[in-house]
């Protein structure tokens, strides 16, 4: 109840501000997604540090890759520079990266692109991604290397990367027993870390544990990065992750600013199943599904920044426009989103966001590729559960042929040996071998004509 009142006050103030600025005066007539132009970037103030942060943040995990002369995947720096130029010109000032992203190349690319601007004109968020080797030496080296890669003297936001998955035990192994927490607080005191927080993927118990550390004064979290979107709001599975409304309320209660990741569930909320798309298009024919998803997240005042991993100029421009003419949702729209989330849950999709943390699989399986093809077929409505479905034969062929196109046969799900190497890497805690087996059972049924 508490946060609802807060939201109402927030809506009121947003409306007042909009009237004053004249920014929201446009009605339905000008609602074309390319009709409005960039507008003025919505900002939020971090009441702890005073930072004025753009509501849209740049996630540096999905930048475009190209092959270099030796056939190695490298970041397309030219494109990155162009996109960062556009982002900076349109008010995006929060850039989130990690030493682990894009085969370890993300920080350097961000550093190259951002260092062309005055340091105080943007905020850098990076992480201690010490999954592989949590020894004090390796962890501190990783921390120190990030300064060089990002060409900076200090980090505005520094995160313990993806805690919660292994519960308290993993947290202590990675940050406590090796003395890293003390080290980071010393660094914060020295001014090299301005805000210290963590990104969270896990269940309620471990989240409560991290909050209790804050409450009892063991640690102080300056901010927290959580997965939040209209599906996860009240429809997280509960075993491996927590409903975002709970996380949100707990953080707001403690006045901890919230950075949001996966507002689009790795793009799945940008490409929604046909019946959901129809519902949304009925209301706003010229708005994309992403527009609704972003607005849902932005409608919560405790949210400081919403990260989006924009791979090309096109989503970047679209998102800049969404946040340049930002309009929080009213209660009716929020209820609609809940309705969409219920519909969404009816589709048997895999909760994969294509972050590729699981790769490379030692047995050569293309895990994200398989999940992507499967999810896409569910979204596109080419997923069949019944042979009496209209166009059954056509859909069956589309799935099987599309599968072979998307993933070479020797990298398909039937070759997964369930070794479980991937399990600890998945921030979504997807039971990857189980999901691959499920998809393989579906493929087998299709091939054997048993559906």
């Amino acid at each position, binding site marked *: 109840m508490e946060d609802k009142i807060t939201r109402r006050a927030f809506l009121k103030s947003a409306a007042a501000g909009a009237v004053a600025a004249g920014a929201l005066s446009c009605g339905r007539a000008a609602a074309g997604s390319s009709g409005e132009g960039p507008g003025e970037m919505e900002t939020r103030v971090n009441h702890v540090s005073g930072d004025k942060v753009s509501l849209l943040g740049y996630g540096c995990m999905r930048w475009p890759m190209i*092959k270099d002369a030796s*056939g*190695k*995947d490298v970041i397309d720096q030219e494109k990155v520079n162009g996109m960062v130029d556009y982002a900076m010109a349109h008010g995006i000032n929060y850039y989130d990266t990690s030493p682990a992203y894009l085969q370890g190349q993300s920080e350097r690319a961000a550093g190259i692109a951002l260092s062309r601007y005055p340091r105080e004109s943007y905020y850098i968020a990076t992480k201690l991604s010490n999954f592989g080797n949590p020894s004090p030496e390796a962890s501190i080296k990783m921390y120190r290397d990030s300064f060089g890669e990002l060409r900076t003297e200090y980090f505005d936001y520094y995160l313990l990367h993806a805690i919660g998955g292994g519960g308290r035990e993993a947290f202590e192994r990675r940050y406590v027993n090796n003395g890293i927490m003390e080290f980071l607080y010393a660094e914060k005191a020295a001014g090299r870390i301005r805000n210290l927080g963590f990104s969270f993927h896990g269940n309620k118990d471990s989240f409560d544990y991290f909050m209790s550390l804050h409450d009892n004064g063991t640690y102080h979290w300056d901010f927290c990065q959580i997965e939040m979107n209209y599906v996860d709001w009240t429809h997280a599975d509960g075993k491996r992750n927590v409903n975002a409304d709970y996380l949100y309320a707990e953080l707001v209660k403690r006045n901890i600013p919230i950075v949001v990741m996966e507002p689009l569930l790795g793009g799945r909320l940008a490409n929604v199943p046909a019946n959901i798309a129809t519902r949304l298009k009925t209301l706003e024919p010229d708005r994309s599904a992403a527009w609704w998803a972003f607005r849902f997240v932005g409608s919560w005042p405790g949210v400081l920044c919403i990260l989006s991993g924009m791979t090309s100029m096109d989503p970047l421009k679209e998102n800049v426009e969404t946040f340049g003419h930002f309009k929080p949702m009213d209660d009716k729209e929020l209820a609609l989103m809940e309705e969409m989330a219920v519909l969404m849950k009816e589709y048997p999709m895999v909760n994969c966001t294509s972050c590729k943390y699981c*790769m*490379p*699989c*030692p*047995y*050569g399986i*293309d895990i994200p590729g398989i999940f992507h093809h499967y999810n896409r077929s569910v979204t596109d409505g080419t997923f069949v559960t019944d042979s009496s479905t209209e166009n059954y034969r*056509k859909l069956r*062929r*589309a799935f099987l*042929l*599309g599968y*072979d*196109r998307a993933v070479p*046969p*020797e*990298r398909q799900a*039937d*070759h*997964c*040996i*369930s*070794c*479980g190497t991937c399990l600890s890497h998945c921030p979504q805690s997807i039971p990857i071998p189980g999901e691959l*087996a499920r998809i393989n059972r579906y493929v087998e049924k299709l*091939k*054997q*004509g048993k559906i």
Partner: protein
Amino acid sequence: MFRKIRIILAVLFFAGVTSLLLDFTGALHGWLGWMAKIQFLPAVMAANFVTIAALCLLTILFGRVYCSVICPLGVYQDAVSWLSSRRKGKRARFRPKKELKWLRYGVWVLFVAALVAGVQVFVALLAPYSAWGRIVDSIFAPAVKGFNNLLALLDQRIGTYNVYPREVWLKSLPALLVAVVTLILVTVLAWRGGRTWCNDVCPVGTTLGFLSRFSMFRPSVDYSKCRECLACERKCKASCIDIKAARIDYSRCVDCFDCLDSCKAGALKYRFAWKKAVTAGGEEPSGTGDGGRRAFLIGSAILAGETVVRSQEKKVDGGFAAIAAKKAPKRDVPVTPFGSSGVRDFYRRCTACQLCVAACPNNVLRPSSDLSRLMQPEMSYEKGWCRPECTRCSQVCPSGAIKPVSVEEKTDYHVGTARVNRELCIVETDGVSCGNCARKCPRGAIRMVPVNPDDPESLRRPAVVEERCIGCGACENLCPARPFSAITVNGREEHIIKD
């Protein structure tokens, strides 16, 4: 008129049989499968008495029309010969030749002996339908698949889902080489001497020749009208007309009717002429073909000695762990298809026509490179496994080597048994848990048992329950050990049906 009908029917049969051999989708077999089943040798192997009787009756009535219409290798030679005749000065290039009895009957006796003794390599080398089958599958099918893959690429580009890409791979080098040599030889012989192969070598032709000597309808000369212009002789691909000796060798005549149209005097007619048996005879033969045939046999023998087979290695890109291509293990007993009753029976009946190899959608069947069953198909699981929903090879086999099997029956056949090689199993070599073979076995024939029997908590390794295994190769194909799988299938001598 007769000639035109012959050409139309020949084109239809030739296109039909060749399409069957090229059709990797299996769509044509329902319509055209009978065209393979009426081929002479497959019908003999299948003990298909109705077909054999019909073919014999056809020959006794009308002569060797089988060779001109139904046999694809015969029609191919006619096409080559026709092209050759279009050259300047070659329009009337044939001369009567003496029947090479020792060669014809020598080959025939050897062929029948090989058939009885089960020396299928020799049978497959000479049988015309088998020869055409391996030529099409080894030489033309890859080109067709390449074209299919271009279409598949286009299909993918425009975002539709109509065409499956098909892998083009070298199924057996010896089979390919034999096919190339066969094609070159048959083409050269036909280019130079028309039906030399059919006259002097082809055992099916010789067999039908026994009957066609006495055929009821036959081209015959009315010598009262004949002006001895010899135009018919010069058009005769079989070189079997000898006007001066007043003889036509009906054992070689394939009823192509080219001679009929050449006769301007109206002396040569296709008519009922039973009991006017005419024996062979004529002038001195020019001797073409004999040297070629010898070279062919010698060449084939050399080829047979080479048994190097290697599947193409595949390259992988950087973002993934590299995957080594699988290599075929050595199998003590070859695995033969579901629907064959056993190894011995299968290889005795199979005419190596490659129809099943061409039809296999899982890249399991390929011509053997083993000398004892060269070019006859065998199963192996490097590229796929014998999937439960597929019974295609059993539907297409014209010779009865693979009997029709239903999808339901298939998983009750026992064609081979898997065996685990503990030295290769990653559970033992890498100390990781796996069990993919057990999970993917469609019969549930693999049990995961503790590596250390005294420690139930130790890692589990696969053990095959032989009685449940059917030999489909899912375990072998999906085993993570590379290049050699840690679990491999060995064939069964006798296939049994489980209950």
